[in-house]
């Protein structure tokens, strides 16, 4: 399946999809989206790439194995529960801080977002893991 068009598309789509997935991830707290949907998009970016260039090359270009990605995702989700403990709250209590608290724009970051990031990585890792295994077969 060495299609040139696909290869070009995949090469250009990948960064786009990655960025888009991050946007979806961040937006998810207020608008439709979230870690799961973002993760699927991230995964899709790499699957597309793998369809164009083959699994092995894709693996090399990511440098991080899907299994590790899954693990990192789980770990992040787990770790997001810990800051609460330092604050003396119960495990997984949401802790928030605000950056650039201007009037029109503010960047609110909190442990639930970190948790969602964990979901994002896990889903992407799972998706690529499964698809890569099947595609290699």
């Amino acid at each position: 399946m060495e299609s040139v068009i696909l290869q070009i598309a995949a090469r250009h789509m990948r960064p786009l999809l990655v960025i888009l997935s991050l946007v979806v991830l961040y937006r998810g707290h207020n608008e439709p989206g979230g870690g799961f949907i973002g993760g699927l998009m991230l995964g899709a970016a790499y699957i597309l790439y793998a369809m164009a260039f083959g699994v092995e090359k894709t693996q090399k270009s990511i440098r991080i194995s899907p299994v590790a990605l899954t693990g990192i995702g789980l770990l992040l989700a787990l770790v997001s529960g810990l800051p609460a403990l330092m604050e003396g709250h119960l495990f997984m209590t949401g802790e928030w801080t605000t950056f650039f608290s201007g009037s029109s724009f503010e960047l609110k970051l909190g442990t639930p977002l970190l948790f969602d990031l964990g979901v994002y990585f896990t889903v992407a890792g799972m998706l690529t893991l499964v698809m890569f295994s099947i595609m290699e077969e």
Partner: protein
Amino acid sequence: MIPVLPIILPLLFMVVLIFTRRWLAFQQYFSLLATVVLTLVSVILLLDVQQNGIATLQMGSWPAPYGISLVVDMLSAIMLVTVSFIAIVIMIYSPGFIDKGRQSAGYYPISFGLLMGVNGAFITGDIFNLYVWYEVMLTSSFVLIALGGSAEQLRGSIKYVTINFVASIFFVAGIGILYGLTGTLNMADLAFKIRAAGHIPHMNGALMLFFIAFSVKAGLFPFFFWLPASYHTPPIPITALFAGTLTKVGIYTMFRFYSLFIVENALFWKSFILIIAGLTMTIGVLMAASQFDIRKILSFHIISQVGYMVMGLGLFTVGGISGAIYFMVHNMLSKTNTFLAGGLVYQRSGSYDLKKLGGLYKASPLLALLFFVPAMSLAGIPPLPGFFGKFFLIKGGFEAGDYLITAVAILVGLFTLFSMVKIWNEAYWKKEPEEIKKGKLSRRAIAATGLLAIAVVLLGLFAGPVSELTVEAARQVVLPELYINAVLGL
């Protein structure tokens, strides 16, 4: 904080093991250490519950009934300790029996996934969260039972996966309907609402869906088919781990649900459950009698003995429930132990088939002892724990005036004895066949089996203190108000 540890620690361990999956030696020792840590945590929880009563934790500080409540009462704590102890034994035992391929394919991390699910099911106080832990547990068990992918395993796992999937669907459908009817998912809140309303229309359909779902998981008649169809297929430590944990989660949940949600029609549910219990214990034990594969005999026995536990539930007196809980602990330990001893038999003689086995009594007194102790415990011979479990149940049954089911339970004991003696007569006493393999036994496996056998003996010898715990646990089950008040802070 502590109530959450039995759930998130296994997850942490799982992640560590995922990252280190290529270093087998590390995996073996780390897993062992991890299970020891889990056991310590569980013991601390148990002591805490014993001193301070039911422990609760609101995840994310969201108050009940909005957030997810974690609740550890005596029953949960007992189950946690038992399961994590079994996990220690399995982790000691595994290296000799799980080949390198399976080990590097994720045997260890997924075992911790299983433990996470099991512990989660014991601890959570939220119905949907319970479903999630069930799925964690089941998915892990799906992976473990198919791990390695021999034809036999695949055959077994297709049945296992499909029937359990169907059960999960019933479970989650029941949750949806219950939410539609009551607007809550917190078990204590739900129980409170049921008691406050007196009657919630249309509840019984959902409750029946739950009953079916848990009956499948627990292996009750007539939903047990997946169990004997699949339990003999994976490597023996996996079977032993399943035997010690999975069906008991179903039973545990049944206890919880019965205690919290059955207010109306109590008489119907009682007699219904007792009938199912009687059929389960009888049919299971009769099927066990006809088998010649050690693993199959033991698998059918799981079913039969699950019947005893459900019988205790059906009695729904402190005596009966306490007996059932004691029986459950005994059964988890003894059953795992017999499976592990069966694995040793296989390692020594290369077969699980009684027709091909023999002479083990003469060949290896230690091996004989390691089987004899748990087998006699299962058969209910004093002073091993099986006797106390049976005795408490019989006492509970007669005192509750349920003579018929108690008579059945007594009679089933005889057949249990028969099958245990059958294994003994054939594999241990019969003259050794000439063509038998003379394998070398793994020391770690012997140590693990021995450790468990010692635990079985101790459980019998310390039946007094243990039964104090089970009576307390039973009291909390019989008086659900304690649970409801602890969670809702009433």
